[in-house]
C-alpha cells in the first residue's frame, strides 16, 4: 500500500494541527478575520479542526472603516453561518479617541493605523495569541516568519532573534503580557489557496470575481471609486471590468483588469500572473523594508 496524501492535503493537515495547538497552548486565542480569501480559508480550516463543536475562540476584524460594502456583507453572513463570535477593533474609534492621528493628503491610508487598533483589540480582550492568515510566499519579510511568532510586551517582532522552531513541536510559552502571532497558512501559496477554495467549494466575496465598476488610475494602480477613494480632478473615471486579487482597506487595494468570473478562470489567471498579488498593494511600495518595519511594530 502506498500511503500518501497530496501536497494540498498535507497543507490542510498542517494548518489544522497548528490551529489545534493554538487552542490548546494558549489561554485566550483570537482569529484575525479580514474578510479576505486567506482569512476565509483559515476560518474554514478552524471549522474543520474543531467540528462538530464550534470554534473555541472568537474572530476579530481590525476595521479601518474604509471597507468595501461587499466585504462587510460577506463578513456578517460568514460569521453567522459559522456560529462564531465577532469582535471589531475599530481604527475609527482609535482616531476619535485621539489615540492615533490620521494621515492626510491624497494617498492617505489607514493601513499603518491598523497596528494600533490591533494591539489595542488584543489588549482589551486580553488575547494571548492572534491567528493570522499571513503566508510566507506573500512578501520577503513574511518568508522569514515562524508558525509560532513571539511578540514582546509591546507587540513587537524581533526578526533577528526568533525562537528556533523544530519539526512541528511548537513552543508557545511566554511571560505575562507577551503574546504570539500564529500563522497556520505559512506554507501555502496563492495558488494553493485558490485550488483549496475550489476543492472545498468555499464561498467568497463577490469582489474576487470579475465585475464592472467605476475606477481610476493612480500611480499605475487601478483604484475603485468608493466613499473613501475619490479621484483627483486630473484623474479620469472609467467603467472597467475588474476583480481584486487581495482585499484589504479600500485605500490601499488595487484592482486588476480581468474577465475571470469563476474559480477556474481565476486559477488560470493566477497561473499566468507575472506579478505577485501584493504588487497592487500600495502599503508595501512605500519602502524596501516596509513590511518588515510594520511587522516589527506589531502589524499582522
Amino acid at each position, binding site marked *: *500500500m502506498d*500511503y*500518501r*496524501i*497530496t*501536497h*494540498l*492535503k*498535507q497543507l*490542510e*493537515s*498542517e494548518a*489544522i*494541527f497548528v490551529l*489545534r*495547538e493554538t*487552542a*490548546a497552548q494558549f489561554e485566550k486565542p483570537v482569529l484575525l478575520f479580514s474578510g479576505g480569501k486567506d482569512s476565509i480559508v483559515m476560518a474554514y480550516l478552524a*471549522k*474543520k*479542526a*474543531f*467540528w*462538530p*463543536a*464550534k470554534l473555541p475562540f472568537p474572530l476579530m476584524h481590525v476595521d479601518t472603516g474604509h471597507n468595501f460594502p461587499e466585504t462587510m456583507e460577506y463578513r456578517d453572513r460568514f460569521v453567522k453561518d459559522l456560529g462564531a463570535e465577532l469582535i471589531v477593533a475599530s481604527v475609527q474609534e482609535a482616531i476619535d479617541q485621539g489615540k492615533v492621528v490620521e494621515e492626510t493628503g491624497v494617498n492617505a491610508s489607514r493601513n499603518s493605523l491598523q497596528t494600533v487598533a490591533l494591539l489595542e483589540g488584543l489588549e482589551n480582550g486580553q488575547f494571548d495569541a492572534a491567528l493570522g492568515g499571513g503566508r*510566507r*510566499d506573500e*512578501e*520577503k*519579510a513574511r*518568508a*522569514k516568519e515562524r508558525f509560532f511568532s513571539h511578540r514582546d510586551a509591546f507587540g513587537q517582532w524581533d*526578526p*533577528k532573534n526568533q*525562537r*528556533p*522552531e*523544530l*519539526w*512541528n*513541536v511548537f*513552543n508557545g*510559552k511566554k511571560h505575562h503580557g507577551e503574546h504570539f502571532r500564529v500563522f497556520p497558512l*505559512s*506554507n501555502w501559496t496563492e*495558488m494553493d489557496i485558490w*485550488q483549496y477554495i475550489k*476543492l472545498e467549494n468555499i464561498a467568497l466575496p463577490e469582489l474576487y470575481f470579475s465585475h464592472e465598476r467605476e475606477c481610476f488610475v493612480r500611480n499605475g494602480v487601478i483604484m475603485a471609486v468608493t466613499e473613501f477613494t475619490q479621484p483627483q480632478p486630473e484623474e479620469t473615471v472609467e467603467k472597467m471590468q475588474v476583480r481584486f486579487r487581495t482585499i484589504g482597506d479600500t485605500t490601499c487595494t488595487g484592482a486588476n483588469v480581468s474577465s475571470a468570473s469563476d474559480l477556474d478562470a481565476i486559477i*488560470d489567471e493566477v*497561473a*499566468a*500572473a*507575472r*506579478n*505577485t498579488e501584493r*504588487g497592487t498593494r500600495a502599503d508595501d511600495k512605500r519602502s*524596501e*523594508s516596509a513590511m*518588515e518595519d510594520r511587522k516589527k511594530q506589531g502589524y499582522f
Partner: protein
Amino acid sequence: MSEKENNSGYLDMDLLRFTTAGSVDDGKSTLIGRLLYDSKAIFEDQLEAVEKSSKSRGDENVNLALLTDGLRSEREQGITIDVAYRYFATPKRKFIIADTPGHIQYTRNMVTGASTANLAIILVDARKGVIEQTCRHAFIANLLRIQNVVVCVNKMDLVDWDQAVFDKIVSEFKSFASRLDNLINITFIPASALLGDNIVDKSENMGWYNGPTLLYHLETVYNGSDFNHIDARFPIQWVVRPHSDKYHDFRGFAGRIAGGVFKPGDAVKVLPSGFESKIKSIHLMDEELKEAYSPMSVVMTLEDEIDISRGNMLVKANNPPKMLQDIEAMVCWFSSTKSLSGRGKFIVRHTTNDVQAIVSEVKYKVNINTLHKIEDDLELKLNDIGRISIRTSAPLFVDSYSKNRITGSIILIDPLTNETVAAGMII
C-alpha cells in the same frame, strides 16, 4: 516550469521539502535565487525590486541572493541570518525550500530549516573545499536523518571549471561522510550559482560532467516518505465536545496521526491509562474516513466512554511505544545565554506533552571535525552537539528518532526564559 504555468494535475502533486546547508558565503542564497530565476518562478515585480536594490548597493550583477535575504540586516551585511522559505512547483512536484544561514552563530536557524526537510543541498566553495562548517552541517543533516543529500560544489567558475578540483572535493566529502551512518544517497554536482551552470541548465563549461542538473535531480529523486506507516501512534491534541443538541453525546479525540494506520473497528489502547477500546469512527469534518494515516489530522471517536485528555496517546496494544521516564537523546544546543554542564532543570515538550525534566548527565560532546567523542569537557554551549540523559517527572510515550521522527523528537525549554534551548533526537 513554474507553478504558474501548470494547473492541471495540481491535485495530484508530490511534495518535496529541501534545505540548503554549508558555510557562510558558499552561495546558498544565490543558488536558490538562481533556481527560482531560471525556472521562471520569479514574478516581475520581485525581480524589479531585486534589480533596483542590487543597483543601489552597487552590485555588478543582479544579486539573486536578495530574493531570499529579505531582512534589512541581511541585506546590509550580505549574509543570511534566519531561514527564508520559498515555494515553487514543476509539473510533477511542489517544492518547499528552506534557505538557511551558513554562519555558525545562526546554526539554530539552520537546524530549524533542516528539521522538516526531506533533502539537503550542502554547498561547498570550490576554492575552499570541505571545511568545518561543511562537516557540521553534514553532521546535522545526518543527525536529523535527512534521506537525500546533494553536495553542490559551487563557484566552479573561480577554479577554471577544473575537474580535478571537483574530484578532490568529492573524495574529501566521501571520506568524511563514510563515518556518518545515515548519509547514504549522496549526489555530487559541480556548479556555478552565479552564472547558472548546472542549476537548471546544463553547463557548457564542464563537458566532463555527465550527471544531472540540480533541478533535474530535485524533480526526479526518489522521495520516500518520511512518515512511519507501521507503528500506530495518535497523540491527542484536543478533546472535541460539541454540547449541541445534534451532537449531544459526541466525544471526539482530535490530533494528527504520528505513525501507522487507523481504521474504524481497530482495537486501540490508551496511554498512559492502559484502557482498551475500539475505534467507532474517524472524521474530517463531515467526511467519515475508512482509514487514516500519518500525517493526517482527524477526529476519532471510540466505542467506550474512557477518560482521555490532551497528552494521551492512542496506540495498538500489540505494538506500543516505550513508556519512559529515563530518556537518552542526542541534542543540538541553541542557547547563547544558558549552557548545560552536569545537571539542569527544563521543560521537555514531546508531541502534545509537556513535562518537567532534569538533565541528569551530559555523556559526551561531539568533535565536529573528527567525529570523536569529547569526554573531558562536558559543558554544552551554543552550537554544541552531544548526548544527554534526561529524567522526566512523568512517563513519555516514545520511539527512537530513527523509527519515527515525530514520536522520537523533543525540545528542551528553559523554564525561566521560556526559550527553546535545545532540540533532541531520542536514541
